[in-house]
């Protein structure tokens, strides 16, 4: 929602006063601006996926996010002329963002435009190459140009589709490529050849084989653990934490069979944590209700009943859930430097998480035809809040 009265041409003095007033009485407009700002502040990792089609980019995204191939495919939107991006789980509150260079397969691809667009945004480059694909000349040419333009960004070389080196055989167990160079000769020989080809173009190499269940492998996510630890080691500290927190929230919700909503709740929690961490009292007062409202709308949209979200918000307002409950405490804490931001962030994170979880409970009750019991929802909210807070504390 933008300012309702913005006359064309040069705004006069009165108009400017009016604009200020409108923004003051219309917090939505205010929040939108802040949310944008928050998104920029949130240390959400951005991965630059770089590889030919079918070299395993989607499987890596799937392995990191848990999203289906179809969701990933539909989630991508055009970014530059030769690239696209996939903000996960939503564009509004992304935890992870993936950039994909589509132009790579086209003749005469010049990465200059992508470098200009991604240079500041992307934290890590994941170069995917199928183990048996040696037609990598053009890929390396483009990579060398990007590398030259911005040397400090780490590059992870992911060699994929290992099974093509040992057709119709199961993967060697346990995963042998962790640090010692052992494993089937054929794989090691091909990997060495790739390392030689990509010499000076990567910082780390990881061997993975993420296959669909129908391929018939006993371990469909072969090397996923090695990939994850490589990524965590290569990411800057703050981004690493975001990734870990996202995983924790995701895992907690997955344990309750809530895979579908998990990433969305985790995404808004991350955003809320960023808002809570801003060490100025009162900033989050305006922003947090907005984030939580948006989360509820996103969740109710996902369940197919947008109006259910609105009813839930009225329901919670009556119960005093959400940010309002511990608001006073948080504002006091914020005056203490360092500690303040951490506790503020933890609270913002935990309350958002608990509210999301409570909505899911509410939604399920309504869906089953029951009238939600306010006391039960309140109990659940409190329990989830405590758990989330304790999880946050462990990470500190």
């Amino acid at each position, binding site marked *: 929602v933008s300012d309702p009265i913005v006359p064309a041409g040069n705004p006069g003095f009165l108009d400017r006063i009016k604009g200020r007033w409108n923004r003051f009485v219309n917090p939505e407009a205010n929040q939108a601006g802040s949310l944008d700002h928050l998104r920029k502040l949130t240390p959400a990792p951005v991965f630059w996926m770089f590889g*030919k*089609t*079918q*070299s395993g980019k989607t499987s890596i995204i799937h392995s990191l996010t848990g999203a289906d191939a179809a969701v990933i495919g539909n989630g991508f939107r055009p970014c530059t002329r030769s690239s696209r991006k996939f903000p996960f789980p939503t564009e509004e509150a992304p935890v992870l963002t993936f950039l994909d260079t589509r132009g*790579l*397969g*086209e*003749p005469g691809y010049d990465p200059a435009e992508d470098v200009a667009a991604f240079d500041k945004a992307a934290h890590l480059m994941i170069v995917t190459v*199928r183990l*048996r*694909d*040696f*037609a*990598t*000349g*053009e890929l*390396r*040419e483009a990579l060398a140009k990007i590398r030259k333009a911005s040397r400090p960004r780490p590059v992870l070389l992911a060699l994929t*589709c290992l*099974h*093509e*080196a040992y*057709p*119709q055989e*199961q993967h060697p167990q346990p995963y042998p490529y962790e640090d010692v160079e052992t494993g089937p000769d*054929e794989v090691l*020989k*091909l990997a060495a*050849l790739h390392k030689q*080809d990509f010499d000076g173009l990567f910082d780390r190499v990881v061997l993975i084989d993420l*296959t*669909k269940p*129908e*391929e*018939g*492998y006993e371990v469909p996510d072969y090397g996923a653990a090695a990939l994850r630890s490589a990524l965590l080691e290569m990411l800057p500290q703050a981004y690493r934490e975001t990734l870990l927190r996202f995983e924790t929230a995701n895992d907690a919700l997955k344990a309750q069979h809530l895979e579908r909503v998990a990433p969305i709740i985790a995404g808004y929690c991350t955003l809320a944590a960023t808002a809570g961490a801003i060490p100025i009292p009162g900033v989050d007062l305006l922003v947090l209700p907005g984030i939580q409202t948006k989360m509820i709308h996103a969740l109710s949209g996902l369940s197919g009943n947008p109006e259910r979200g609105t009813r839930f918000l009225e329901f919670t307002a009556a119960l005093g859930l959400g940010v309002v409950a511990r608001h006073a405490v948080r504002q006091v804490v914020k005056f203490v430097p360092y500690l303040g931001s951490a506790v503020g962030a933890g609270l913002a994170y935990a309350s958002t998480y608990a509210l999301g979880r409570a909505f899911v409970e509410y939604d399920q009750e309504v869906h089953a035809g029951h009238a939600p019991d306010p006391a039960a929802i309140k109990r659940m909210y409190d329990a989830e809040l405590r758990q989330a807070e304790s999880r946050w504390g462990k990470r500190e």
Partner: protein
Amino acid sequence: MNRLRLRILLIGIFFLAPVAFLMGAGAYHLWITGWGFAAWWPMAGSFLLAYYLAYRFTKRREPKLAAGTGTPDVPSYWTDRDREAWASVQSFSEHVPAPTTDEISDMNRYARDAQALAIRVTHHYRPHAKDPFSHLTLPEILACGELIAHDLARLVNKYVPGSHAITVNNFKQMRQAADWYERGRNAYWLVSALIDPVRAGLQIAATKAGLQTTFRQVQKNVVSWFYTAYLLELGRYLIELNSGRLKVGTRRYLELMELHEAPPADPDAPAGAASPPGARADAGRLVVAIVGPVKAGKSSLVNAIFGDELAGVDSLPLTPAATRYDLNTPGLQPLSIIDTAGFGQYGANDADVEAAIEVAAESDLLLVVVPARSAARQPEVEFLDRVTAGFAARPNLRMPPRVGVLSHIDALTPAMEWAPPYDWAEGNRTKEVSIREALIAAKETFGPRVDAFVPVCTAPGRAFGVEDGLLAAMAAKLPEARGVALLRTLHREAQVDRTKLVVEQAINAGREVLKAVFGKKP
């Protein structure tokens, strides 16, 4: 010879004499009994029907008629430019007015149309040429004339009965005979009219209305059929002339054509003898080039075709340059298979791409090996586009047919499974569906750049689709490949001959000069 003719004549006379007598006696009897008038009508009707059918059967003046009578259908080796020129020849032959019976023996008429047709054909090859012959060499034109004469002679021998004995005088006498027949018939009418004016008048009217017109129509059809055949024949050789294929001379041209139509089958050369790279196959062997990205399975394909370890298959890209292998399969024309170095390891402009393009430009059939699992096919598409552009720049050659080989199908979903045979065209097993989908995707990506795709697995011990699938697809493309080879041979020999000839002529001229200077043989 004359004695033989006399004997045949005698036998003929004695054989036909009773029939002639019966004819006369019968006619006399009909006249005596007065049945003549009644009997005349069915006879006239029968004649009319015969003429009408002759007219119907000879009426179609389509190229088909001519094609079936000595001028073969468009030769398979013709290039696109040749085909365009041929379409122009056909439209000319359809639109030129058919000559009258008098014009058929008028040489000027032939010359005039030949000139017009020659200009027309020449413009397809040299759009700015003012006259049809100035850019051609004398031997070429002579060869063209010789070949047309050769073919027309064959045509006439085959379709004009007794033509081997007909001289030009005979031809003129035959026309006179036709005139005499006309005169004789008029005399008959005159006599009949004196005897029975009413009946004769009726008969004359019927003959003039029915029989005569139909007879003239038949005559016209035959003339125009002959003329169309002549024009198409002429057009065909004008195309051969303008495309430079007659430069090798009549004899060599006919030799190569014969070889093209009936290729030598399976000489007992040892199979799979590797020759040094760069050596082109000897005449009569077709050259099959295997191209594709690095590690696509080209060398293992060679191994699978030959059935034993030949190319030293290793998982490292070993092949340094192109290697040639000779393949002799019973029932198949002997082939030379050239295994090229895979491209793409060093970018789009690397030396491997150039080398592969060079090999492709010299081959008669291209096997484009594409890994089934790879979706990034831009380098291969670009490669084929470059080869196509190379051939577009040399319109007297033809682009070799392309057979796509979808390799590594064992890696398709489910990757763990390999239980051939797979019925990928119809089957419903997951692997079969995967193969089918991979084929569709490959066809979409390559479009007309590749004529047909064959899925294969070439891994040792797991070979599938090579003998029944790939070799069959290659065999289907062999006629086209032979055409490509023919054009290449004609083109190359013409170049070589020309150089050789100039050198020989120079030596001869030098000898003459020496002779003149020293006054004796050097």
